[in-house]
């Protein structure tokens, strides 16, 4: 089985994200970029499946700027077999990304598509679901455990009420949650090997996907600053203050 894994280049989760001066976006200059952490978990899961013999090829795909090659190279160093970058310097919104992935799916014909449940930059949590609908295949989202037998994926989903076990027929779209696995460390010799693995860069336009702007971002603003607390001298003063706030 071939597994297709989608990854996105995002600002690293350790970085304190700041709104830029004119509110048109966030500061990206000099900021560390990484694979979206959920996508990294998806890559790891695909590699473990391959190591267990559940899959024979892992292809990683990304849509993004030329620099997203770095993240694809990291995925190759983790152990993916090949990578494709559909280069676009413009923001790709969820529906456009899902349509683009559908075109990739049609070309690659994978038995499974693994994605992160959401990207930590826009937190949309839409692409996996949209892709499944467009592809007309089953989906298992927020997955924290995954097994395979006879063309069926048994998935444990993290839902509000706890855990939900479902079975989906393959091919399917699976989006992964944090607890599924802990991604491996990249090893130095594998970084060398990754340099020789195939990484294709294609123009996004080649996918023939329309990118209607469905969401318009008008302004970015930091959350309001928290006001410092006040100290009160006595219990009475505290009760008074709480009453004034309407809490008591």
């Amino acid at each position, binding site marked *: 089985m071939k597994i297709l894994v989608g990854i996105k280049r995002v600002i690293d989760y*350790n970085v*304190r994200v*700041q709104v830029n001066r004119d509110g048109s976006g966030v500061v990206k200059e000099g900021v*560390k970029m990484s694979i979206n952490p959920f996508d990294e978990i998806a890559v790891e899961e695909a590699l473990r499946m391959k190591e267990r013999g559940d899959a024979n090829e892992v292809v990683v795909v990304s849509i993004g700027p030329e620099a997203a090659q770095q993240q694809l190279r990291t995925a190759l160093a983790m152990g993916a077999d090949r990578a494709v970058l559909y280069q676009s310097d413009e923001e790709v919104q969820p529906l456009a990304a899902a349509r683009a992935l559908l075109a990739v799916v049609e070309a690659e014909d994978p038995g499974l598509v693994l994605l992160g449940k959401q990207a930590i930059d826009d937190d949309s949590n839409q692409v996996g679901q949209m892709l499944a609908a467009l592809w007309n295949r089953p989906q298992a989202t927020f997955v924290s455990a995954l097994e395979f037998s006879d063309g069926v994926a048994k998935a444990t989903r993290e839902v509000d009420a706890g855990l939900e076990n479902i079975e989906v027929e393959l091919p399917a779209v699976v989006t992964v949650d944090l607890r599924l696995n802990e991604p491996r460390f990249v090893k130095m010799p594998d970084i060398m090997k990754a340099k020789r693995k195939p990484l294709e860069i294609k123009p996004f336009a080649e996918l023939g996907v329309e990118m209607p702007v469905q969401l318009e971002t008008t302004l970015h603003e930091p959350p309001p600053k928290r006001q410092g607390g006040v100290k009160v001298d006595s219990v009475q003063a505290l009760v008074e203050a709480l009453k004034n706030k309407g809490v008591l």
Partner: protein
Amino acid sequence: MSEQQGDIERDVMEYDYAIVGGGPAGLACAIRLKEKMPAAEICLLEKGSEIGAHILSGCVMEPGPLDELMPAWRDNPPAICVPAGRDEFRLYTRARSFRLPTPPQMHNAGNYIVALGELCKQLAEHAESLGVEVFPGFPGRHPLIEGEGADMRVVGVRCGDMGLEADGTPEGRPGPAFAAGVDIRAKTTLLAEGCRGSLSKQLIARFKLDRDATPQTYGLGFKELWQLPAGRTTPGLIQHSVGWPLDNATYGGSFLYHLDEDRVYIGFVVGLDYEDPRFSPFEAFQQFKHHPDMRALLEGGEIISSGARTISEGGLQALPRMEMPGALLIGDAAGTLNVPKIKGVHQAFRSGMLAAEHLAASGTPEGYDAAFRASAAGRELHKVRNIRPGFHGGLWLGMANAALETVLAGRTPWTLATHADWDSLETRASARAHGEQAAMAANWHQERSLPPRDRLASVYFANTAHEESQPVHLRVADTSICATRCAEEFGNPCTRFCPVGVYEMVTGEDGGLQLQINASNCVHCKACDIKDPYLIIDWVPPEGGSGPNYQTL
């Protein structure tokens, strides 16, 4: 090295040249080596998560050596690159400031204010395009040494292990994701770790490279990048200061560089030879920001990023021998910074390029030390060798001596010795005997309003991160001293000199005070390894990719 780890099977990778450290010295060396010897196999290790992540520098750069290294840099300048404008040198008192004549070394016409981390990223890309293997996220952990006595030589470095878990032992135990560090074997290893490199420290001791040098001395520098309300800046303006909030006996001063887009770099450097164990360098920097001049500039602005790093201040007389069999020290790993100029980047570039040229010409580290000292970089250090040690007698004597040395261009017939920083703190007993002098802080502001509120808040702007489960990378050889001897003699200065509050004395379960090490705050500045008065703190690299992620610093 524990036995347990001795059993671990490790990959071995062979190179002609292994460079430890992706700063200006290491990258310049890598680029020049590859230019001179295109067939050479070269790898460069960097402990930060990416090139530039651990780079922090003033930095008003003299462009000459970079022009030599990568002439095209001007066509594609780094993210922050502002031509130097007017220079100002000021003396601060608590409420006022006075303009002094700018010392000639501090004239910056033709120089550039740059974000060195961004420049390093570009240099790394250039190095990679030439065929250098660049490995960010892989610290050099142990030097690989073979032979004994006169035959002893460096044969490479062992990279740090990944996925170790703390288990109470210093080295920890392999966790589920454990990945053993690779052994890099190289014909020549180049230590380009910057100030107080952990491998360099071991090798200097092992090969007694500092036999003929006076002790290396250090400064601790802080830097913040601020975004200000429109209209307050004069792009290119360069201000340096001495005086308040430091007292006459303490060496140090501020820098303020006006950038484009209403941004400034503001920073403070303190000589780590300060004597008062109650002194907090971090607090001194924050005090400086609350001087009326600075407060007026900064109020209403926002910090984008911040960090701290030590710098080598010992100069020529403290420069260890830069060569040993199988390896070279380059840049601030040796200590090539020019203190009166407050510049090290051009010197680091020079020493890296010179090392490459020397290796290409002779094939051996031997002779590099002499070549460096005879080079433009070495001559530059000779000229200014007596200026920083002259401040040992305080600010005014230091300034007078600096003026003399400058007029004579270093042709004074003497060379002033340097003194080790760890030995400079005055014990409480001695302070009491001297009639306990007023702490510097008596002349400081009680209330501060500008961010960061405290050291923990400042960590937030350094984007620092360490996997919490790993063994503590700040090794304190004997923690029983902390609550007893050190508390009595010095009052635990580690709780104040650390710029990010790694060291804390807390009440233990038995009700007594004990040391708590908040290792995950560490920004890899190395101040503790230098200033601890018992020399029992050993800074070792944590898991690769840990530490700060500096943003345009």
